[in-house]
């Protein structure tokens, strides 16, 4: 009988078992990155930077050179690598606590300098690894272990929109917010990733793709309810779409 391969793991990821909780979208996002790096022929010349949070072990999963950064510092680490190895493809993989809280200065200034790197920003509106604390991206009313009565605007302000914020930074080139809650959006997200890595390959500067993600365990929901919550609650506050495309301005 003739067999045909219709689905297989991407060579962009190692064979290590992922450490993510069931139902979380990190796995999908990892796979998309792996696929894009393979399809673009960039895998063997890439350096991925793991941040602190759920993705702290991602240096075990990406099938390329990796460096593990201190909390929030991935864009600075990426800067050091890219400046000394301009031909390498350099990307960071950061959560919302890492990027939008402790690493805010590093992400804004990497964009400000127009560093020719690609940032993968995974926004699940919570600190996952440390057990579900409030993040700058936590929605108003959302219960976390440090906002047990729901996030209160009076105490903690309003959730930070990173793609919108970075769109105001003149040095940033390409910014898009995507979601992976269904196959249609996964395909769209992959297109955005492809574009972001193209921007880097073409030496056009700073690119970031923000993924709306889920955290079933810390949200206290089933995986399906989490996806629904992301669509019903997160996307209205964090609208999907293109926030900046400086490549067009240049052409």
């Amino acid at each position, binding site marked *: 009988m003739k067999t045909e391969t219709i689905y297989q793991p991407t060579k962009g990821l190692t064979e290590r078992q992922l450490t993510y909780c069931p139902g979380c979208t990190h796995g999908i996002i990892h796979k998309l990155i792996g696929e894009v790096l393979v399809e673009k022929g960039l895998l063997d010349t890439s350096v991925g930077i793991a941040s602190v949070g759920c993705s702290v072990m991602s240096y075990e999963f990406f099938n390329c050179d*990796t460096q593990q950064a201190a909390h929030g510092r991935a864009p600075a680490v990426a800067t*050091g*690598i890219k400046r000394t190895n301009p*031909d390498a493809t350099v990307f960071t993989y950061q959560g919302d606590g890492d990027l939008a809280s402790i690493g805010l200065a590093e992400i804004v200034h990497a964009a400000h300098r127009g560093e020719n790197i690609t940032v993968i920003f995974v926004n699940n509106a919570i600190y996952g690894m440390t057990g579900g604390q409030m993040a700058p991206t936590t929605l108003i009313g959302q219960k976390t272990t440090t906002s047990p009565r729901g996030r209160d605007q009076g105490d903690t302000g309003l959730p930070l929109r990173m793609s919108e914020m970075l769109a105001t930074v003149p040095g940033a080139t390409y910014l898009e917010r995507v979601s992976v809650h269904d196959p249609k959006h996964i395909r769209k997200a992959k297109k955005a990733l492809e574009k972001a890595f193209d921007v880097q390959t073409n030496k056009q500067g700073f690119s970031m793709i923000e993924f709306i993600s889920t955290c079933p365990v810390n949200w206290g929901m089933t995986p399906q309810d989490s996806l629904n919550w992301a669509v019903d609650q997160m996307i209205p506050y964090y609208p999907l779409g293109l926030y900046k495309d400086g490549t067009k301005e240049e052409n």
Partner: protein
Amino acid sequence: MAKVLMKGNEAMALAAIKGGCDAFFGYPITPQNEVPEYLSYHMKENNRVFVQAESEVAAINMVYGAAGAGARVLTSSSSPGIALKQEGISYMAGSELPAVIINVMRGGPGLGGIQPSQGDYNQVTRGGGNGDYHVLSFGPETLQETVDLVRHAFDLADYYRNPVMIAVDGLIGQMMEPVDLDNKIASMDLPTKEWASNGKSGERGRLNKIVSLHLDPYDLEKHNLKLKKKYDEMVEKEQRYELINTDDADIVIVAYGTVARVARSTVKTLREEGIKVGILRPISLWPFPEKAFEKLPESVHSLLTVEMSLGQMHQDVRIVNEGKRNLAFYGRAGGVVPEADEIADEVRKLVKGANA
């Protein structure tokens, strides 16, 4: 190259270029600003990397990335800025990454002041980052010694795969002195950096990872013991010091950096008075040069530690002394440099004390 008259900070910057520095990442802070200023011009000219970071925190993490990718990297700062870099220094020690860090020390704590100080001795030798680690560190006295050490530090950092710190006080950073930047220094035979994570996994056929995370305690303990082996080797091989007029001495001043320069005048004055005084000058601050103390003659009855801090190095002198000799301490703080006469008065007290 003949000797040229240069300001300390600029001489250190040029020495870094001569030492093969590929990249510099830093942030402005007084009194070290001439280092990044000089490099902002001359690194580009030499086709190397210069980035003014948004903070000391970002700068040291850029150092981490570039060092992890195999480059020879420098950062420079002054005391409060070095405090901010401690997180990154701990990560570099944990990930075994080489880099050279220049610390042009000023008074503290907090913002403190901008005048010369040695108040970072504990920060330099104990480290402010988390975990069991050490930074190989030197406290040179003259600009010539400083530039020689800066050049050599890149080799040492690569050899040990560990950060190396050159800790000078603000006076050495700001003063001018003739220096020979091609002075012959020891060169080390170093292997290529097969471990570098630089996006060449295809070429090398293996993935390289730069990581300080070891979640299994037994695994981490093994890593800690591996690091300790390197620190033990540093203690064995890298103790550096100078003994000045100690052969017949009754009293020995223990001082490093600018204070040792001042103490040389003290010794000259007191020797003319017939007081047999010498200097034990630590050059390596970590490892502390314990071997130097073993070389002091039996005639030495008292040690006087003099520092531009309130007794930080003196703690190490106490540890090494193990109660053998009389100990005394004289320190000035806040950016005040002790005068030769002040030190002489302290030595005279010891002469009287010994005779009493």
